[in-house]
């Protein structure tokens, strides 16, 4: 028998995912017209692992001339091949890409974790399978567009310029490329500068799939590369996911041109816990809502609203749960929260932690160990905040939660909607009628009931107000890439 008061300490031994099967080149060029080409400027930048600051590979920095080359290749492929191809043939290519990705799912997951700092559990179970599913799903639509838009004549747009963020690098590439190809468009895609590697690995797969040259072009680089795509006159459509600030610049730049656009921007989404909710599951939903992917989620449930009668209980349970989260090596299978994507982002998060404290809010951080090298932030929550606090109003994009209480349903609807954003919301209650009441009144593109951060290729995603416009995913996601007559 174990003796009374004997202190048991059961620490999980490290369980790192192996990186032996990963095939990364030292240097990556641009993928234009089906070939790997050196950048015009001859410049390369480093892609580093945010968990240990080590360099993973150098990546080409594309300038205007490179972008022009990519757009021309895309135009040529569009005019000569892709727009003329039988839709069922297009579908076969998209299926092939999906299958090749699945076959190399493990390699994609490990590279994503290395490059972005996200935990292997999420890249393995969420990012990569969802990315594959997007290709599978849109492959199915390619030859059924007339059924998607009954009694309309459907045609493709041309060349789509796509700019994606660093929070879900491969998944966002899939969200963008799959519907564009299914509807008969060609693509010039720019990944974010801190997370180019999985997009480049995707380019290798596209090459392997035999997709006609120029249908998908991948140009890497910084904001100037993105600007070159946005300003290129032969681009018919801009699809952007990223910050609201950049989204506004893009919209100004394309005003008065023929370019169509969809923007998926920031958010400050409300997660609402009513007093009759299953509280332990709601706490889990809070954790998934704000700490999933280190809080680098545009639809993160970063504003928590708890009905006053259960607030103390929820906060106590939440703190307890936060203390069981493991922060550390993203490649360890037991890690719950990985590394912050970049030093820049960590600085942003830390500045908000200071702002919150200066505003008089009470800060609580999980008492977990954090690795000494690399960019890490403890799971954090702020209580004693107000609707007028900056940390409640501004998007932090990190593992930082603010908690407000409310008394009545009407009050929480008003407060939840009182934001320039409108991307997502969560509602937790045992009563179906309350769910329907809230979901119809919350002005957000996605409202989850008794769950949070659930994604599926069949479900449209997008925002209200400054969270952007246009929908990605599902049937609605096709509309952004077609002309209807």
């Amino acid at each position: 028998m174990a003796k009374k008061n004997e202190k048991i300490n059961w620490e999980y031994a490290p369980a790192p995912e192996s990186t032996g099967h990963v095939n990364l080149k030292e240097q990556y060029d641009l993928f234009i017209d089906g070939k790997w080409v050196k950048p015009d400027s001859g410049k390369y930048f480093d892609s580093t692992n945010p968990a240990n600051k080590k360099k993973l590979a150098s990546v080409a920095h594309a300038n205007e001339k490179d972008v022009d080359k990519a757009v021309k290749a895309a135009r040529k492929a569009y005019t000569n091949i892709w727009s003329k191809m039988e839709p069922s043939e297009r579908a076969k290519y998209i299926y092939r890409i999906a299958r090749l990705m699945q076959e190399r799912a493990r390699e994609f997951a490990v590279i994503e974790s290395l490059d972005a700092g996200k935990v292997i559990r999420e890249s393995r179970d969420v990012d990569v399978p969802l990315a594959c599913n997007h290709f599978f799903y849109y492959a199915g639509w390619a030859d059924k567009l007339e059924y998607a838009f009954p009694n309309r004549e459907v045609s493709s747009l041309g060349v789509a310029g796509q700019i994606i963020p660093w929070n879900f690098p491969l998944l966002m590439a899939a969200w963008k490329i799959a519907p564009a190809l299914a509807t008969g468009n060609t693509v010039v895609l720019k990944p974010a500068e801190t997370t180019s590697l999985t997009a480049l690995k995707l380019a290798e797969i596209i090459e392997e799939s035999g997709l006609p040259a120029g249908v998908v072009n991948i140009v890497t680089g910084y904001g100037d590369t993105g600007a070159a795509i946005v300003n290129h006159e032969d681009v018919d459509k801009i699809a952007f996911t990223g910050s609201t600030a950049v989204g506004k610049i893009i919209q100004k730049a394309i005003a008065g041109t023929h370019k169509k656009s969809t923007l998926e921007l920031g958010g400050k989404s409300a997660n609402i816990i009513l007093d009759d909710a299953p509280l332990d599951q709601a706490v889990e939903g809070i954790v998934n809502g704000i700490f999933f992917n280190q809080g680098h989620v545009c639809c993160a449930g970063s504003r928590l609203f708890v009905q006053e009668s259960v607030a103390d209980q929820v906060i106590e349970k939440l703190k307890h749960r936060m203390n069981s989260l493991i922060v550390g090596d993203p490649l360890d299978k037991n890690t719950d929260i990985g590394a912050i994507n970049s030093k820049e982002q960590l600085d942003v998060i830390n500045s908000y932690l200071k702002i919150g404290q200066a505003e008089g809010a009470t800060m609580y951080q999980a008492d977990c160990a954090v690795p000494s090298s690399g960019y890490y932030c403890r799971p954090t929550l702020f209580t004693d905040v107000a609707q007028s606090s900056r940390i409640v109003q501004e998007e932090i994009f990190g593992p930082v939660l603010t908690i407000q209480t409310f008394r009545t349903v009407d009050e929480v609807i008003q407060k939840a909607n009182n934001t320039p954003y409108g991307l997502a919301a969560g509602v937790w209650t045992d009563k179906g009628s309350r769910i329907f009441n809230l979901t119809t009144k919350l002005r957000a593109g996605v409202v989850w009931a008794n769950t949070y951060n659930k994604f599926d290729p069949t479900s449209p995603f997008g925002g209200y107000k400054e969270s952007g416009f246009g929908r990605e995913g599902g049937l609605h996601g096709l509309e952004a890439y077609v002309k209807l007559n």
Partner: protein
Amino acid sequence: MIFTEAFLRSIPIFVGINYQSMAKKKGTTTFSIPDFTQSPRIDKVGVEERVSRFQKRSIKKEAKMQGLRMALNMIDLTTLEGKDTPGKVKQMCFKAAHLHDVHPGLPTVAAVCVYPSMVATAKKEVEGTGIKVASVSTAFPAGQAPLDVKITDTKFAVDAGADEIDMVISRGKFLSGEYNFVFDEIAAIKEECGKARLKVILETGELVTLDNVRRASDIAMYAGADFIKTSTGKIQPAATMQVTYTMLEAIRDFKLKTGIQVGMKPAGGISNSKLALHNLVMVNEVLGSEWLTNEWFRFGASSLANDVLMQIMKTETGVYQSSDYFSID
């Protein structure tokens, strides 16, 4: 209606007073009995999601060895059959103390679990080993007997030397909404236990919903359970991780409200090491390491021990051995 002494003792007002004085004795503040119809609601989908997180923990190397040894030491080695005889029970008791003597230094199991008629035999066999004797009671497994029969059953087991009593709740009464009846019955058996620790079996396979599991857990703990236990092992499904998780959350909330620590015993269906380790991960993360001893956590199992032994030998030697190298009881 005949008012027996036991029946009178089970009247709620007496139970409440007894209970509050007991709580005080344990050095905690007194508390009132809640309205069990208001027990927290449980969302099944959310529970499944949470449980899958425990199942994804990867337990390797030293952590695995430590976990396996803990699991062995938490087992209530069980035989509960109509055909049980002293001969069978004696052999099982020897196994309980000598799990795998070719590998010295292994812990023993926590307890042996038998029917009341076998308690005396078991008690004699495990003497001096530190292994406890647990006895099922209260007309196990159905519990369809009058309270005085259940009390007599319990008294018999305690008198025969049982250190622990595993009672069953009246599921029929519970499902017909008679929560006070269930509460009073548990409180009456608790009194009869004396120094023996009381494990209350909810038989979750018959309660069906997680809302019911939560409510029954609350009733059992407020009525005086030292342990709550999932199942008799006679009904499927038994100790699923979803059910155990729901009960662990109830235990945590009870500790927060009353300061009283209650133990947990999943029983039935945990037949391999992986499942046992997942259960321990769950206890560790929901309740904390204070529960990671056999004083507060048990596995009710008959075949788990050999699988754990097999894994321990595999971890040490690098190869799996045939099941013929491990004694069946």
